[in-house]
Every structure is written in structure tokens, then in C-alpha cells.
């Protein structure tokens, strides 16, 4: 009962942080740019780190062994 009361008494809220910025073209473009940036950055970091580790493992594998 109280749950349904909460449902009916509640009002609309801007829960999404980006809802206010759709009118302006610059803001819209900034959202697109930062979305691309934040999507690609972790992939680039993980990929770069993984590649570095792979190359280092390859180097160690082929390095002359100490007696």
C-alpha cells in the first residue's frame, strides 16, 4: 500500500545527468566526444599494457639464460 502510494505521489526527476544538455549543439558534441574518449581510453590502456607485457615476455623467453 505504502509502496503504491510512493509510486503515485512521486514526481518526475532528471535522474540522468545528460538530460539537460540536449538542446545545445556544442554540449551535444561534447557528450559524443567524451563518450568516445572514455570508451576508447580503457581499451587503449589495457591493449597497450597487454602488448608491452607480451613483448617483454617474448624478450625474456629469447634472452640468453644465465649459467
Amino acid at each position, binding site marked *: 500500500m505504502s509502496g503504491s502510494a510512493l509510486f503515485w505521489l512521486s514526481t518526475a526527476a532528471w535522474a540522468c545527468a545528460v538530460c539537460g544538455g540536449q538542446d*545545445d549543439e*556544442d554540449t551535444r558534441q561534447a*557528450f559524443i566526444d567524451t563518450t568516445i*574518449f*572514455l570508451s576508447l*581510453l580503457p581499451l587503449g*590502456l589495457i591493449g597497450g599494457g597487454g602488448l608491452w*607485457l607480451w613483448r617483454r615476455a617474448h624478450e625474456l623467453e629469447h634472452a640468453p639464460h644465465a649459467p
Partner: protein
Amino acid sequence: MDYGMSEPELRIVHPPPRERKPIVPNAVLGTMIFILTECMLFAGFVSAYAIARTNVPVWPPAGQPRLPVEATGFNTVVLLISGALMWYAGKKFAESPDKARMPMLGAMALGLFFVAFQGMEWVQLLSAGLGLRTSSHSAFFYLIVGMHGLHVLCGAGVVVRQFLQLRAGTLDAESFWAGRLFWYFVVLLWPVLYWQVYL
């Protein structure tokens, strides 16, 4: 049936296990993962800042103190030299740990200078009326620059500790590598933040 011959003894001979060295020391790998998460933290800050500045027609907002671009540019150069000295210290450490003392001392001194200079800059800006609540610009400024300053302070603390260990002859190469990695991170991150926040 015994024919008077002893049965041949079967013995499985295993080759000696090959000693595997870790690709990178644990301290370095841990620092790399930590830096990765830190990169995402600052990327989030910079992205939020980039969006916030498009929401207002004039940026920085009119009627508030200007950020000291030239003085901070000088401080940026100081931090970059500190990073270069740290790289040189790492190179010298590989030859002989004693040879790393002077460049590490220089890197440490310049890093502490950077933090002190930033502190003075903040005092001036606060006294000029640029507070955390003055505008969204100032809020982002204190958040981003302050968070980086905190990282530099922690990094400088690590450098000081490692310098003392180096003097005592107890600094191991793996810890030094991890410490240097973190220092490179704070040094190389700063020009990006300077470009985004000050310019």
C-alpha cells in the same frame, strides 16, 4: 619364477624444472594496474570539465580571477625536468645505485618545489576570491588540480622514502621501478591537465 636375475629398476627421470622469472615484478604490475584506474579517474574529471565548459557562453566565467597561466607554465617545466631526472636516476641505478643519488635528489627537490609552488598559487587564488563555490569553473579547477596535487604529494613522499632507502643501501630495483613508474604518471599527466584547465 626366479631366473637369478634381478628385475631392471624402472626410474622415471624428470628434467629439472625450468626456472621461470616473472615478466614484471609484482610491485610494478600492481602499480601499472593502479595507474590504469587513475587514468580513468582523471579522464572522467576532464570529460566532465569539457562538458561543463560548453554549457556556459563565456569560459572562464567573467568577473572572477584569472588563473596564473605563465607561472604555472614555469611550474610545469619544473615538473617535467623532475621527471627527466627521475628517468636518468633509473638509468644510473642500473649501472650502480650510488650513481642514482644526485639525479634522484634533484627529482625529489623539484617535485617538492612543484607542490610548494602550487600551494602558494592556491593561497593567492583563494585570497583573490576564487573559492570552491565561486563557479563551476573554480570547482573543477580545485577538484582536478587538487587531486593531481594530492598525487604529486604522495609520489613525492614515495620518492623521499626511496631516496632515504637509497642512501641506506636498502633500495631494491623492483621497488624503485614501481616508484619511478608512479612518478612518470604524475609528471606526464600534468601537461594534459594544464592544457585542459589553464589554457
